[in-house]
């Protein structure tokens, strides 16, 4: 638990960042309209289609091998009907976040391209976990994908807006052989889970996202009775799997320890680990072509 002083410091730091990216208004528009009991596929499609660049990217994603629909989807209204309102909103959110922070900054100690590879692989693995675990635990696999993509968003905020302190963290993690979270707590007295949570709150993301962002490295702090425990657990397990596969870079060289309750809540057998690793690698190859900046 971080102290009130530290909480205030993070809040002030985040609030004082003038050029902190804001989520496109389309996300809040979609949210408002989806919550309206009179929401229609036509209205939701019209909101998305107003943003042509976003629409084009959504088509690329949903027509990729990752989604493997039997036929090509060429209208947003078709996509909305096939996927559902919330699912399409979460795809729009994922695409928007990569656009906001996805620019690779060369020459940085913290390699942004490798960071996004890690985030995308966690998103992909989280979605595979959600699909495998089924609708009793996860009603919307796209929510799990978007939450997985954003789990480490605090690291990119720290690198872009608290750069000097963040470099000290990376150096300390390398020198001490520690997890980035522990190095952050030692040097900053908070970690990327805290900064990420503040950004998510500022962006008015739902509570489920806040919990994934603030607890993915410490799911033991999330009660098993909490309705978001399976979501936090899916992203936690995905993070462990992706680190084991060495896809991308998360700021340190170590695989974070697996929280056993998080594995157990998903209901998978030991034999599934290898299958999950194979499916993650394959799906990551399919989706990274269309969702990274190079694939634009």
């Amino acid at each position: 638990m971080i102290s009130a002083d530290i909480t205030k410091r993070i809040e002030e730091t985040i609030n004082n960042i003038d050029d902190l990216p804001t989520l496109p208004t389309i996300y809040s528009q979609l949210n408002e309209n989806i919550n309206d009991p009179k929401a229609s596929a036509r209205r939701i499609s019209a909101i998305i289609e107003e943003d042509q660049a976003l629409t084009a990217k959504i088509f690329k994603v949903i027509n990729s091998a990752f989604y493997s629909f039997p036929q090509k989807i060429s209208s947003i209204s078709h996509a909305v009907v096939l996927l559902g309102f919330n699912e399409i909103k979460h795809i729009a959110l994922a695409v928007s976040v990569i656009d906001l922070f996805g620019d690779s900054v060369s020459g940085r100690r913290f390699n942004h391209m490798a960071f996004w590879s890690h985030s995308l692989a966690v998103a992909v693995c989280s979605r595979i976990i959600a699909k495998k675990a089924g609708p009793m635990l996860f009603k919307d696999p796209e929510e799990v994908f978007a939450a997985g993509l954003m789990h480490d968003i605090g690291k990119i905020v720290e690198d872009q807006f608290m750069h000097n302190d963040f470099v000290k963290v990376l150096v300390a993690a390398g020198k001490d052989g520690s997890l980035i979270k522990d190095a952050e707590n030692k040097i900053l007295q908070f970690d990327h889970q805290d900064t990420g949570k503040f950004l998510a709150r500022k962006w008015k993301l739902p509570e489920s996202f806040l919990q994934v962002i603030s607890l993915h490295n410490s799911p033991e702090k999330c009660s098993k009775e909490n309705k978001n425990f399976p979501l936090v657990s899916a992203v936690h397990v995905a993070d462990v799997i992706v680190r084991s596969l060495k896809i991308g870079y998360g700021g340190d060289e170590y695989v974070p320890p697996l929280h056993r309750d998080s594995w157990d809540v998903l209901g998978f057998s030991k034999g599934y680990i290898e299958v999950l690793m194979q499916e993650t690698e394959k799906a990551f190859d399919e989706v990274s072509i269309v969702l990274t900046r190079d694939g634009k």
Partner: protein
Amino acid sequence: MAIINLDDLLPGMCVAEAVKVQGRVIVGANVALTEKTIHLFKAWGVTEVNVKDDSIVEKEEPAKSIPPNVLADIERNIKTEFKFFDTKDEISVEIIRIACKRRIDAWSKETE
């Protein structure tokens, strides 16, 4: 469950969903495969079968001798990367085992 190609099926794998040909069940769910049933699939033109994850066994590749120094490097790296893992937990141990196996496989492929 995992869909396995006919060529990768091995005796002992357990069928997760009944295998049907022209609407007729030729092998029911929960049945362990034998050489004979795999042969039968071939004869019926079955190309893939849904099998239970727990029963998946990998085809034994002829072991390629890996130089002791390469193996030692892989083991040292694995030990470092997974140093925060609970080695008393069976799921954690399995993740480490598979990660190690994959690195050895990757080395073997690279040197082919």
